[in-house]
């Protein structure tokens, strides 16, 4: 059916609500890539098999990511007249047990992560309590989702539907208030009004640079020339970052709705989603979303019965990191080599096929419908003076609660890491957090009270970037970290401009030399000179920010560089050429386990006698440390003269 009136939209909404809350048991499995990687697919198969075998009337649904990767696979269960519960770390065995326990009303409470007693409709600012009149007594002690540390500091705007709706069903998106913003825009607002609303909201580009979105739309609208194009950048390539993937997999319609609103504001009739080919599930979900949107008259001709037309094509990226840069992305869309060009004439004026083009990233687009529905004032009330709204971060590395978190701007890094993330595992000491992807920087412990804010992070030598946040503990060598990111950038440099192609390679070579114990006096100055050449000379942001990992580690962890260069010592005990493995004879019980596990027969000793490592034969794989139960196998870096 084509939706042309508010009544039609309401009708679809009723259908969606019936699916969201059927009058029977409903099990939802978080099946985004993160869930699937931990076995959600097998949990799904087990549930589906058991439900069919037993002939049970249970609704089974796929949903997106709840953000709490550490606890995946996560399954949520709704039962009539009971709170909704979220089960953690599910397995096929537990799934089978779950189905039968639901029949006898006795879900194993140890599996339960949290519960919900109401449903939030963010778009209408409405919280609808569930009927929990028959809640089992044992549920009383289970915390609400909003009460557990991982969730209570979060504010989900772009992610508000992820994990709660079936991303493959447009009706459920509409049930949560989806597409009402677009309906309002097309029926009640002028383009200027839309642009002014987005400008007033203070929304800035979530891809990293933080350019004010409304200003960009306005420049594109005013640029001479037609057609105009609207582009969604879904070429998320930072190592360890997966915010956009999660939005596309869990709530693709929010991105489509944002794009149609943007297209109307700018006066565009053709949109593109440039998504990396390494995201097959995201591609599948957007494809399905586009099909359904067409079916319901939300894409194509005469959208919502108006005379506005807009279509979206999907383009898959071929695996080049640089294609996340806007001008390279547009070159790639045109079928040319994915290389950037100078932006002295901006792409809002001359972009794709030399026509005015407006590019925003996935997360930016997903924020748009809420700004229209709740208003610019509401959005601008969240965040700091200069950075409004929320930001999604993928919190990874040495952190207890790995996951995808969305926080209001202005929250401190310490709150994200210690409270939401639960701190560093195994009692280790926090060392640094890397924000902003390969072009970002490492922030030390003394700056953790920095608020999440575009300017504050840049002033600290890092950047907001697209939202990767990698936590490192005391066992991390910062020179090695800088080398890792430079290796990544060396491999991803397109090779067009000299500073990036040659400079990043030389900087990486200097870092390789330092970590191999072959650093020379003067290497630090050499790195600093290269950094200046990159910052001032590189053609695009990939090159001009490539030195950030080096500069930030040099300014906060210079002593580590000096230890490597001067003393040939790796203080964190990481760089293989600078460390030595040994066995403490006092602690060794002579259990022989390490000798048996050593792949190179480098450990010798009699049973029940202290063992020793032949350092000539040792390949520094760390197997002995891993297996030793007495902490006798160790590594040290004492330095060479």
């Amino acid at each position, binding site marked *: 059916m084509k939706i042309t009136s508010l009544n039609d939209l309401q009708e679809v909404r009723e259908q969606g609500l019936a699916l969201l809350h059927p009058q029977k048991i409903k099990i939802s499995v978080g099946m985004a890539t993160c869930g699937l990687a931990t076995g959600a697919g097998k949990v799904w198969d087990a549930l589906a098999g058991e439900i069919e075998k037993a002939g049970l009337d249970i609704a089974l649904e796929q949903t997106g990511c709840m953000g709490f990767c550490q606890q995946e696979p996560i399954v949520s269960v709704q039962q009539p007249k009971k709170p909704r519960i979220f089960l953690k770390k599910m397995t096929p065995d537990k799934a089978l047990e779950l189905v039968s326990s639901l029949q006898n009303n006795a879900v194993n409470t140890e599996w339960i992560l949290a519960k919900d007693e109401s449903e939030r409709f963010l778009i209408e600012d409405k919280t609808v309590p569930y009927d929990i009149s028959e809640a089992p007594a044992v549920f009383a002690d289970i915390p609400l989702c909003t009460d557990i540390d991982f969730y209570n500091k979060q504010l989900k705007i772009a992610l508000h539907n992820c994990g709660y709706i079936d991303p493959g069903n447009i009706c459920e998106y509409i049930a949560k208030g989806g597409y009402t913003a677009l309906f309002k825009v097309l029926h009640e607002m002028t383009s200027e009004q839309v642009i002014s609303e987005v400008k007033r909201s203070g929304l800035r580009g979530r891809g990293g640079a933080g350019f004010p979105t409304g200003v960009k739309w306005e420049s594109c609208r005013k640029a001479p020339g037609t057609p105009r194009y609207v582009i969604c950048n879904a070429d998320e390539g930072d190592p360890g970052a997966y915010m956009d993937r999660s939005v596309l997999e869990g709530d693709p319609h929010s991105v489509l709705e944002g794009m149609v609103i943007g297209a109307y504001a700018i006066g565009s009739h053709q949109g593109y989603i440039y998504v990396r080919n390494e995201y097959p599930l995201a591609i599948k979900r957007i494809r399905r979303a586009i099909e359904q949107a067409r079916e319901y008259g939300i894409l194509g001709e005469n959208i919502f019965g108006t005379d506005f037309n807009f279509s979206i094509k999907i383009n898959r990226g071929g695996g*080049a990191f*640089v294609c996340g840069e806007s001008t390279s992305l547009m070159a790639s869309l045109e079928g040319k*080599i994915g290389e950037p*060009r*100078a932006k*002295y*004439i901006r792409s809002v004026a001359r972009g794709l096929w030399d026509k005015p083009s407006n590019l925003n990233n996935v997360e930016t687009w997903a924020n748009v419908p809420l700004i229209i529905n709740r208003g610019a004032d509401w959005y601008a009330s969240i965040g700091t003076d200069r950075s409004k709204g929320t930001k999604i971060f993928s919190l990874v590395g040495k952190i207890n609660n790995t996951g995808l978190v969305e926080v209001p701007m202005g929250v401190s890094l310490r709150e994200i890491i210690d409270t939401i993330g639960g701190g560093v595992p195994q009692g280790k000491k926090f060392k640094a957090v890397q924000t902003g992807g390969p072009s970002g920087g490492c922030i030390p412990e003394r700056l953790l009270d920095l608020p999440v804010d575009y300017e504050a992070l840049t002033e600290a030598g890092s950047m907001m970037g697209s939202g990767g946040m990698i936590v490192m503990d005391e066992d991390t060598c910062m020179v090695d970290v800088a080398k890792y990111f430079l290796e990544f950038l*060396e*491999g*991803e*440099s*397109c*090779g*067009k*401009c*000299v*500073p990036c*192609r*040659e*400079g990043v*390679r*030389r900087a990486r*070579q*200097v870092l390789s030399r330092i970590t191999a114990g072959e650093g020379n006096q*003067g290497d630090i100055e*050499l790195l600093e*000179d*290269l950094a*200046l*050449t990159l910052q*001032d*000379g*590189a*053609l695009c942001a990939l090159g001009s920010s490539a030195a950030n990992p080096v500069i930030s580690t040099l300014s906060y962890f210079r002593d580590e560089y000096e230890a490597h260069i001067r003393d040939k010592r790796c203080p964190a005990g990481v760089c293989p050429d600078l460390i030595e493995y040994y066995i403490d004879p006092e602690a060794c019980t002579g259990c022989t386990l390490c000798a048996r596990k050593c792949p190179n027969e480098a450990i010798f000793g009699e049973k029940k006698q202290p063992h020793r490592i032949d350092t000539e034969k040792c390949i520094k794989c760390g197997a002995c440390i891993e297996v030793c139960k007495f902490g006798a196998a160790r590594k040290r870096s004492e330095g060479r003269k």
Partner: protein
Amino acid sequence: MITLTIDGKEIGVTEGTTILEAARMFGIEIPTLCYHPVLSAHGSCRLCSVEVVQRGWSRVVVSCLYPVAQGLEVKTNSERVLRLRRGIIELLLTRCPDSERIQALAQQLGVDKPRFERDEHECILCGLCVRVCHEVSEKHLLNFVDRGFEKEVAAPFYEPPEECIACGGCAYVCPTGAIRIVDGKPEFLWQRNKQRSGEKDG
């Protein structure tokens, strides 16, 4: 007509002129490697970088692509610009230590020995040969292959292009002599590298 100042000298040029063109019109020399007046600008060698000041805000841009603007203040020889050019030429001298053109430019900029381990490349990937083949002879036989440090100029399938009319444009514009004319035909780097590796294997 647009008025701007370059190195303190006030000049007037027509709209759409680049800083480099404007500077050369008035006899102000800016070094270049990937630029040729009859070809489209590529902006890849970055040697022609200059500092521009607009509304009190200074930044470095490449003059071969940056269009002049009213009231623009350009510094072609500021310490920031010279430092960048020295950095760039040091990288190029590391890559192509035997190129006379690079050596001469390095000397001009005051760089005698690069601080990095030297490479043995002949091509700096300025792309002039590619643009000549596309824009002047309109044969479209050359292009870039691969990316990053592995990038090179080649014809399809690394075969000597049959459609080559031997105009010699590519060899003529090549700043480092990486393309030579042998028996009336251009000989490209990949052909010589193939030969060399063949000799090694044989």
